[in-house]
C-alpha cells in the first residue's frame, strides 16, 4: 500500500499544471475561479484549446481521440483541471453523448458526430428530465411515433442545461407506450434547428440563464438518428448516468474554492485586522479540509479499484463520492458566503462596488447556484437508495 504518486505520475501532473496555467486564457480561469457564468465563446475557446492538444476527450476510446490513460492519470487530469480553474470540457459532449455514440452508435453516426463533438463544432444538450420525470426518470412521457420512416416527437423536456447554445439535443423518448416503463424508451439525436422545437429560458435563483425548457411539437427526426436499438434507450441512459457520476465529487474544484476562501479571508478587513485572525473561522476551514482530504483518498481508492473491475460496469462507490462531494462543494460555497459577509449583498457586476474589488459580488450567486449539486446527477436521496440497495442489500 502506497498512497503517493509514482515519479511518472508526478511528472504527468506537473506537465498538466504547466499546460493549464499557460495555455488557457487567464481571464477565463479568473471567471471560473470566482464562480461566474462563462459566455458561449469562452467555453468554446477553452474546450478547443484542450481538444487541439488531445485533452478534451481523454475518456473516449483511443480510436476516437481518447487517451490510453490509467485510472490514476484520469484522476490527476480532472483534479488538476479543476484546481487550475479551467472550465471542464463540455460535459454533455465529452462525458455523456460522446461515450454513448462511441459505444452504441452506428459507424455512420460515429463518423458524422464524434470528431465534431470532440471539437465542440456541435454543442450538445441533454433531453432527459421532464416536468413529471425527475428522480423517477423512467416515467418520462415525451413520445416518438414512427411515421413514414421518420420519428415524430412531441412532448416537453425540463432542466435543459445550456440548451440556449445547443446545436443538437440527445433525448430519451418513449417509443412503446405498451411496454413496462423502462422497456419502451429510445435514445434519439435531434437537430435543435428542426421545425417544431421551442426553447424557453428559465432563470435560476442565482439570476443565471443556465437551464431551459424545450418543447417538441410534432418534430420530425430521421430514423437514422436513433442510437442503437429501438426501446433499448434505458440501457444507454444508465451507461451515460454512470459516466456522469464519476468525477462528480469535484474535489479539485472544492480545493480551489478553499484556496480562494483562505486568500479572501486574509484580504477582508475585520476587527482591526483581517478575517483570518479569527480562530473560529480558521477551525471551520480546517474541518472542511479534513473531510475533503478524506474524500480525496476515498476517491483514489475508488480509482485504484477500477483496475480490478469491469470498466463498463458502474461502481456503486460513486454514490458515496456524489453524496460527500456535493456536500463539500456546498460547504465551500457557504464558507465563501460567510467570508464575504455583508459584501455578499451588492448584485451588480459592473465592478464599481467595494465587493467587486475582491470579486465577491459573484459569491452569493455561487452559493445559491450550488444548491443544485445535491439535486442533479441523481439527488443525494437517490444515491442513498442506491447505497442501501447495492451495498447494504436492504
Amino acid at each position, binding site marked *: 500500500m*502506497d498512497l503517493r504518486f509514482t515519479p511518472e505520475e508526478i511528472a504527468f501532473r506537473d506537465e498538466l499544471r504547466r499546460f493549464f496555467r499557460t495555455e488557457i486564457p487567464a481571464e477565463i480561469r479568473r471567471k471560473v475561479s470566482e464562480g461566474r457564468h462563462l459566455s458561449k465563446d469562452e467555453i468554446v475557446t477553452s474546450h478547443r484549446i484542450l481538444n487541439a492538444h488531445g485533452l478534451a476527450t481523454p475518456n473516449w476510446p483511443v480510436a476516437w481521440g481518447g487517451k490510453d490513460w490509467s485510472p490514476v492519470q484520469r484522476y490527476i487530469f480532472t483534479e488538476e483541471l479543476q484546481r487550475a480553474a479551467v472550465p471542464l470540457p463540455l460535459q454533455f459532449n465529452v462525458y455523456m453523448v460522446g461515450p454513448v455514440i462511441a459505444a452504441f452508435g452506428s459507424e455512420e453516426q460515429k463518423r458524422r458526430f464524434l470528431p465534431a463533438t470532440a471539437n465542440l463544432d456541435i454543442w450538445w444538450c441533454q433531453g432527459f428530465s421532464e416536468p413529471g420525470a425527475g428522480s423517477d426518470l423512467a416515467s418520462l412521457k415525451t413520445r416518438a411515433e414512427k411515421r413514414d420512416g421518420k420519428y415524430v416527437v412531441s412532448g416537453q423536456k425540463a432542466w435543459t442545461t445550456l440548451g440556449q447554445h445547443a446545436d443538437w439535443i440527445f433525448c430519451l423518448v418513449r417509443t412503446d407506450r405498451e411496454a413496462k416503463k423502462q422497456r419502451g424508451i429510445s435514445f434519439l439525436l435531434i437537430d435543435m434547428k428542426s421545425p417544431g422545437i421551442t426553447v424557453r429560458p428559465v432563470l435560476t435563483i442565482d439570476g443565471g440563464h443556465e437551464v431551459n425548457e424545450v418543447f417538441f411539437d410534432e418534430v420530425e427526426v430521421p430514423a437514422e438518428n436513433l442510437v442503437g436499438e429501438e426501446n433499448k434507450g434505458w440501457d444507454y441512459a444508465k451507461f451515460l448516468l454512470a459516466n456522469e457520476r464519476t468525477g462528480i465529487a469535484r474535489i479539485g474544484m472544492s480545493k480551489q474554492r*478553499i484556496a480562494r476562501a483562505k486568500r479572501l479571508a486574509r484580504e477582508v478587513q475585520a476587527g482591526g485586522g483581517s478575517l483570518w485572525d479569527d480562530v473560529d473561522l480558521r477551525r471551520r476551514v480546517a474541518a472542511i479540509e479534513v473531510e*475533503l482530504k478524506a474524500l480525496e483518498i476515498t476517491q483514489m*481508492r475508488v480509482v485504484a479499484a477500477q483496475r480490478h473491475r469491469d470498466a463498463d460496469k458502474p461502481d456503486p462507490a460513486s454514490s458515496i463520492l456524489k453524496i460527500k462531494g456535493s456536500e463539500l462543494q456546498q460547504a465551500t460555497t457557504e464558507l465563501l458566503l460567510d467570508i464575504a459577509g455583508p459584501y455578499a449583498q451588492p448584485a451588480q457586476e459592473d465592478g464599481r462596488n467595494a465587493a467587486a474589488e475582491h470579486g465577491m459580488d459573484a459569491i452569493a450567486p455561487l452559493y445559491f447556484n450550488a444548491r443544485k449539486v445535491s439535486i442533479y446527477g441523481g439527488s443525494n436521496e437517490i444515491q442513498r437508495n442506491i447505497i442501501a440497495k447495492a451495498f447494504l442489500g*436492504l
Partner: protein
Amino acid sequence: MDFDLTDEQRLLKDSIDRFVDDAYGDFEKRRRYQAEPAGYDPRLWAGLAELGMLALPFAEEEGGFGGGPVETMIAMEAIGRGLAVEPFLSTVVLGGGFLRFGADASMRAALVPRIADGSLTLAFAQLEPASRYALHDVSTTARRDGDGFVLDGRKVAVLHGDSAGKLVVSARTAGARRDRDGITVFLVDADAPGLTRRGMPTQDGLRAADVTLDAVRVGPEAVLGKVDQGLPLIEKVVDIGIAALCAEAVGAMEDLQRNTVDYLKTRQQFGVAIGSFQALQHRAADMLVAVEQARSMAMYAAMMAEEADPALRRPAVSAAKVQINQSGRKVGQEAVQLQGGIAMTLEYKAGHSFKRLAMIEKSFGDTDHHLRIVSEADSLIEAE
C-alpha cells in the same frame, strides 16, 4: 499509488482476523477475559506471541517481524472488530515505539525478545491531573541524583498500567511545567520502590491505573532517548499510537455498521423487516459513508505515521484523528439508534462498540484539540 496489500500482508491479515474471530466471535467470551486479574486472558496473549503479533513492529535482526505502519493497521483493525481487550496498543505499539526510537541496541536486545514472547508488557504513563491532551504539560519531576534520577509525581488513567511489567514515564528534568524542552522519558520497573498503582476498569472494558511516583530511583540506563529532549520522541510515538487507534476505530466502526445492517434485515415490525423503511435505509447509507471516510483517513495516518519530519507528520495524523473522532461518534450513535433498545443493554455487542469508540475519541486528543493542530499548521490546502 496503490492500495493493495502485499501477499505477506494478506497472510498476516488472514491470521490475525482468524485469531480474533476464534477468540471473540462469541462475544460472551469477552466477559470472561475481562474477569481475569489483568483484565485479559494470559493464554490469548501467549497465543498472540505465538502468532508473531507481539514482534510485529520490531526489526527482523532484533527478533522482530519487521512490520511497518500498514502491518500495525491490519492488526489494529482486527482488534477493533473484535473489541479485543489485550494490551497490544500499550505494549507493542506505544511501548514498542519508545523502544524502537528511544532505546539503545543493548536495551532493545534485552527487552524486545521478552515483549515478543509475551513475558513483558508495557504501559505509557503520560497523562497527569492537569495536563489534559498537552504532551508537553509535565509536572512529574526527575531530579538528578548521582548518575541516576529520582522521580516524583502522579500519572493518571495509564492504559493497562495496572498489569504492565514496566512503565514508560514522561518526567521533567528541567524547565517550567509547560516548556517544550526539559522533558525526559524513562523506563521504570512497575515494582520499583516508591511506585504505587491503583488499578481500575475503564468505561470501555479495558484496564487502567493511577500511578504515584514517590522518590522512585532509576539508573542512567532508564533514560529513553535524550535527557531534556524527550518531547519529539513522545510526539513521534504518540502519532504512531494515534494512527493505530484510527485503525482500531475503523475496525470497530466496520463491525458496528455490519451488525446494524444485519439487524435492519432481521428485525420485524409492522409485519416487515425494518430495513425496508427508507428513513432507516438512508441513515444506514450515511453510516457507510462515515465508515469509508474514516477508513481513508486511517490509511492516510498509517502512511504518515513514521514520516520523519514532524511538520508534515503531525498535522496529517491530527487530520486523521479529527475524521476518526467524527465518524466514530456518528457511527456509534447511529448504530445505537438503529438497533434500538438492545443496543442500550450490556447484553449485545453494539453498545460496547459504541463505548469503545467514544473512549478512542478521548484518547490522545479530542476533535477540538486536533482541529487546532490542523488549523495552526494550515498545510492541507494552500491559499491561492
